[in-house]
């Protein structure tokens, strides 16, 4: 059980009324509510996972909440990031979240860190909190959160989502396993698409985020059985929960210091390799080619549902999975017939993948840098930025 000092914590009459449904639960009671108020929780990210869990941690009476995020609210966030409202679009997420938290519970102390979590600030930040909640969206930050939790001895309440599926557990709690026991290494960049590329059901992070909030509150209260040592898998389409055993792996090397996580996840290497391997074309160059009537073929490798949202004039739709299974490669070959090839997707990741496969089949082409998003920005405001 976490060592929380409640000797100096008092609850006012208004707080007693506010938290009365907790106070009458024997498992929480006045002492438990004081533990929540004495508790300090740091949430990394105020996105899909961070949004719902922060709302409930604030409502539950957690006394101090730190939030780390460098991003601003974008209109495409609002489908799932329920802590942010329409009037906050364009403003820092941490400020938006703080405003909402204080509206829910003015007794909460909110610390905002409008910055990216990095190896050079993580340990210092984590040291001030009792529980760390991982609501990030990329592998480098997940390994950083994990390692910093291990080094500072903090529990890491983990959740992660993909399309309709989610995972949740508690790492590094009371001698239990950590993220590296589950996955010693990250997948190579681009293998698993991000939510921005792969999409996500807006409600999914609500479910997973609230499982994280539940685990956080249980850890602060010291009640129940946490997910430590168990990986919970959730499938929204089947509406099923499954549980897998998670153990410490004796082969996991000990974590002794923070490292360069971008490097560890192969990001700079992949970027350099890709640039060396796949030539790019900018949207301005593409526009110039179009205006000059140059002979080229433009292939869009997004999915048909993305194609419906908007397209670049003259593009041919050949989704990446078709190129991966080989049919698309032959379609491209037939289309080309001696012309030059330009490939695009939403932002350039999938098109680079497609071009690698095409190259292996002897077809060279250029990747549209920044994808249709860059095109929309420069030449066609009617295409929604999705």
């Amino acid at each position, binding site marked *: 059980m976490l060592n929380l000092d409640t000797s100096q914590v008092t609850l006012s009459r208004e707080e007693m009324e506010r938290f009365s449904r907790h106070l009458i639960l024997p498992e929480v009671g006045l002492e438990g509510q004081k533990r929540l108020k004495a508790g300090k929780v740091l949430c990394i990210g105020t996105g899909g*996972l961070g949004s719902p869990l922060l709302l409930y941690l604030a409502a539950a009476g957690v006394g101090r909440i730190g939030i780390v995020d460098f991003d601003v609210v974008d209109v495409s*966030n609002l489908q799932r990031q329920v802590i942010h409202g329409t009037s906050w679009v364009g403003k820092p997420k941490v400020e938006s979240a703080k405003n909402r938290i204080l509206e829910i519970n003015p007794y909460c102390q909110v610390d905002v860190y409008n910055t990216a979590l990095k190896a050079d600030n993580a340990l210092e930040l984590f040291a001030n909190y009792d529980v760390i909640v991982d609501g990030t969206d990329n592998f480098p930050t997940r390994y950083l959160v994990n390692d910093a939790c291990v080094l500072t001895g903090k529990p890491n309440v983990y959740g992660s989502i993909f399309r309709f599926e989610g995972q949740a557990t508690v790492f590094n709690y009371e001698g239990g396993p950590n993220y590296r026991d589950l996955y010693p290494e990250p997948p190579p960049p681009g293998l*698993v698409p991000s939510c921005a590329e792969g999409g996500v059901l807006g409600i999914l992070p609500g479910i997973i985020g609230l499982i994280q909030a539940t685990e956080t509150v249980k850890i602060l209260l010291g009640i129940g059985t946490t997910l430590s040592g168990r990986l919970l898998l959730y499938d929204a389409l089947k509406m099923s929960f499954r549980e*897998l055993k*998670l153990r410490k792996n004796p082969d996991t090397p000990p974590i002794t210091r923070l490292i360069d996580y971008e490097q560890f996840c192969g990001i700079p290497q992949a970027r350099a390799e890709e640039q060396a391997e796949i030539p790019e074309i900018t949207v301005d160059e593409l526009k110039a080619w179009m205006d000059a009537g140059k002979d080229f073929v433009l292939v869009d490798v997004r999915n048909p549902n993305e194609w419906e949202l908007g397209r670049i004039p003259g593009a041919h739709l050949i989704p990446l*999975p078709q190129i*991966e299974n080989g049919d698309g490669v032959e379609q491209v070959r037939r289309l080309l017939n001696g012309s030059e090839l330009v490939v695009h997707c939403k932002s350039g990741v999938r098109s680079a993948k497609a071009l690698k496969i095409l190259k292996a089949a002897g077809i060279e082409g250029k990747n549209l840098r920044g994808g249709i998003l860059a095109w929309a920005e420069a030449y066609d405001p009617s295409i929604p930025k999705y």
Partner: protein
Amino acid sequence: MATKILIPAPLRPYTDNLEAVEIEGSSVGEVMRNLVTRYSELKRHLYTEDGKLRNFVNVYLNDEDVRNLAQGDDTPVGEEAVISIVPAIAGGW
């Protein structure tokens, strides 16, 4: 005897979008080998070139990581066995 294998969303493009497949085999290892023979695209996502399971993918027999089983890949699969493939996912935003 066929064993049910649950395929996670990120890998379904390589199994004709099926979320579960039934594969013959008497041990976990044999079932997995038959799986990547039937769906050859899956192979490079699950295994390294020298045939080792990749570090960001776990395979479970029922609720236990196959690497934690005394017999590992040679563990026999019973009638009701379910194999799960669970890759690392990072989304949260």
